């Protein structure tokens, strides 16, 4: 008996040392995020300042769902934050989230931008935009027109397998069906000035270099480059272009979201909800808009002028979830037409 109680104490001590003292400390919460630390740290810092809740983070990329799933009911995750509606819906489908009822959240986020059951909430919006050479006479353009032979050899875009493009192709399928989408994608590929690849900022850089006239890229990059946060060279790239918010022929601009959910087994549920509520507050939405040049979800917050001057965003009418449903088909289409070859 003595021996066994001794061994219990020893085992307990060893475990405590091994695991660290993660016991009853002052309020804190654990955030699993696929948003890069550099983007969200300012928000988390101001949250901690306002609430004195400490936020521990881990930045994951692909595999957030797998990690949380493998940790099961012992997962330390309280809040799961991801980019792309598809990833959020994935989390819900895998049973990794829980429903949250909060009038603050429902009051600040339009219904189209949150799960009706409260499993996920959008925090900010970005548009899949068109960058065009500054002197080019393009005031408006549709996604459909990108396949117009008039653009042959003039378009730059990143890999067709990148989630941003997969989501765009998915929305195209939602609008026009798979067959039409395949034709469109093949024609768009035929219009490329260079092999699909690189990042969204490279579109601006390549337009500056005269490699292409227009390109497809996310809206916030314009703000990031213009602001000079990426250094003086990127400001030059931004000066070469203007942003046009394209639309579908019968719809609006294709948008995607960054969003968050409370984890199914969250131990700090109250703190987790507080973080979500903070992130859609007027104050935090302002930081989103000013630091990251994203479109706020909260209608009371203003868009930063650096991207606001390119016009008012009219998000597409197709439900986010519907476009997401076509994600797999979209990725397969990109392979079928050899978009990246």
């Amino acid at each position, binding site marked *: 008996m003595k021996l066994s109680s001794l061994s*219990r104490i020893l*085992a*307990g001590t060893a*475990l*405590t040392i091994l*695991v*660290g003292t*993660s*016991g*009853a400390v002052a309020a804190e919460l654990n955030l699993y995020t696929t948003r*890069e*630390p*550099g*983007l969200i740290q300012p928000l988390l810092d101001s949250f901690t300042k306002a609430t004195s809740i400490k936020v*521990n*983070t*881990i*930045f*994951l*990329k*692909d*595999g957030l769902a*797998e*990690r949380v*799933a*493998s*940790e*099961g009911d*012992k997962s*330390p995750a309280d809040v799961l934050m991801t980019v792309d509606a598809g990833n959020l819906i*994935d989390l819900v489908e895998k049973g990794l989230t829980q429903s949250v009822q909060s009038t603050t959240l429902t009051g600040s986020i339009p219904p189209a931008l949150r799960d009706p059951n409260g499993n996920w909430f959008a925090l900010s919006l970005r548009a899949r935009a068109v960058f065009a050479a500054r002197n080019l006479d393009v005031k408006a353009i549709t996604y459909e027109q990108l396949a117009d032979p008039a653009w042959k050899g003039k378009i730059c875009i990143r*890999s067709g*397998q990148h*989630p941003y493009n*997969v989501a765009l192709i998915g929305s195209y399928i939602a609008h026009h069906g798979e067959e039409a989408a395949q034709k469109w994608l093949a024609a768009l590929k035929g219009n490329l000035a*260079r*092999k*699909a*690849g*690189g*990042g*969204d*900022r490279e579109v601006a850089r390549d337009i*500056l*270099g*005269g*490699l292409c006239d227009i390109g497809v890229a996310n809206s916030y*990059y314009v703000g*990031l480059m213009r602001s000079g946060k*990426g*250094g003086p060279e990127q400001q030059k790239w931004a000066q070469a272009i203007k942003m046009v918010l394209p639309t579908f022929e019968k719809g609006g601009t294709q948008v995607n979201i960054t969003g968050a959910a409370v984890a199914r087994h969250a131990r700090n549920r109250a703190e987790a909800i507080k973080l979500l509520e903070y992130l859609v507050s007027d104050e935090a939405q302002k930081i989103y808009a000013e630091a990251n040049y994203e479109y706020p979800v909260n209608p009371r917050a203003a868009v930063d002028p650096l991207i606001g001057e390119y016009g008012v965003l009219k998000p597409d009418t197709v439900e986010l979830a519907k476009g997401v449903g076509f*994600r*797999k088909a*979209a*990725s*397969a289409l990109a*392979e079928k037409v*050899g978009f*990246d*070859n």
Partner: protein
Amino acid sequence: MTNLHLALAAIVRRPRAGLWWRVSALAVAAFVCLPIGALALIAFQGSAGLWPHMIAHVLPAALRDTLVLLVGVGLLATLIGTTTAWLVTAYAFPGRRFLEWGLLLPLAVPTYIVAYAYLDILHPVAAVQDTIRHLLGYGSPREFRLPDIRSMWGCILLLSLVLYPYVYLTTRAMFMTQAANVVEVSRTLGHRRSGVFLRVAVPLARPAIAVGLSLALMETLSDIGASEFLGVKTLTVSVYTAWVSRSDMPGAAQISLAMLTLVVALVLMERHARRNQRYAAAAQRPRAMTPLRLSGHRAAAAFAACLLPILLGFAAPASYLCVEAYRRYRFAGLSPKLWGEILNTVTVSSLATLIVLLCGLVVAYAARTCPGRLTAFAARASTLGYAVPGTIVALGLLMPIGALDRLLASGAEQILGRSVGLALLGSGAALIMAYSVRFMAISTGGIEAGFSRISPSLDHVARMLGQTSAGVFRRVHLPLSKPALVSAGLLIFVDCMKELPATLLLRPLNFETLATHLYGEAARGTYEEASIAALFILLIGILPVALLARVGRASA
């Protein structure tokens, strides 16, 4: 063998004494195969409709590109690695001392960094191409630009430039220790210089080339950073797409397992091809070869030939990062978190190195002292993880690690009466496990090679002189294989430090390494911020690389 030898061999191989070695070796092998087993389980969940699509639209091209890439990197890395190894061992010329270790420097450069650096250096809108256009009198990149490095040839070139050191390292060691007598004999027999190299040195060094090359090729196969950056759609990139874009984990697991089968088949074929050849040296201390002195233009040519891979594989990306990092530093200063990240990187990599070495030692020693199918199998199985991409290893490990973690956490809750965190995923232990799976091949392979140079007669003599089996290990094997151990350790350390995907997926909360910091910036397109972390990865890598060259020289 004489009767005496047989009798002695029987003593050395007493079955009881070897039991623990065998069990331990099998345990290490089982651990390395753990994620592969988990993958098999995932693969069996079935993936509806994946294969018809893959066969119609993805696999033919992916298979072709993977093979072209492997053959290309194989040829180029062997060419650079063996030629330079031969030049610095067989000849003496000014600058050789520096080149000997300088040729290893590209090891410190991760594939994703070399790819990114060259994409930016050779970007149509950047200084290099601007200058070329200016000289040629062209106005814009639309009129004239260099062929896009984002291509198969670019990928072959860049991967070879940072992977040839594996071939160089193993081949140089072989040239230094084994070739001396034969080379000198063939020189006296009137072979021309190139004849000595091609007809004597290279065939003799074949096992060493095979070891180095297989490391380089497995890195190529499992690479995702550079291939994706450079737009080469390998099988690994396809696995990644199946998983990320189509959430098809079973499909991804199936392709990875098919790839792994391919690798195993290739390795077996290579071994089969040289099954009847013996390369062991005599028990006498191996003698270094006397280098021929070169002078004049011959010396200059040798120097230039060895300098080129260093310039392209290390100096160019390193200077690029220096410039970028300095610009960034002037613009935004140093992140205060950097020092913590350096500490994390070095700590985790060192711990992992120790554990991987220890496990490799067990497997290699078991294979030597208890030769047989079981231990040979363990030795081969323990190298499998190197051929599996880091992301896949991490995903495969998540399942068993998560299960164990939940079990431990429940147990701890019962004992302590309150909830504690996760013992493996929460402490960084999971990281070390992943590194062990990935890099055990370097350890087992390197130590086995070191052991193979110790003649079995030394074991017998030591036993005859009254040493126990542990004594032989401590007093004969350990000291004689120290260079192999140290080399393997340094290689593992550098590899752990560069590792990205598994680190990203399995690390604890609030824990960043240089590689994950770099990725966090690169993923949102702020490469300029990432350049400082990238530069530090290179800087920290230089030290073990320089040591590696010293170990190689001392062992000769």
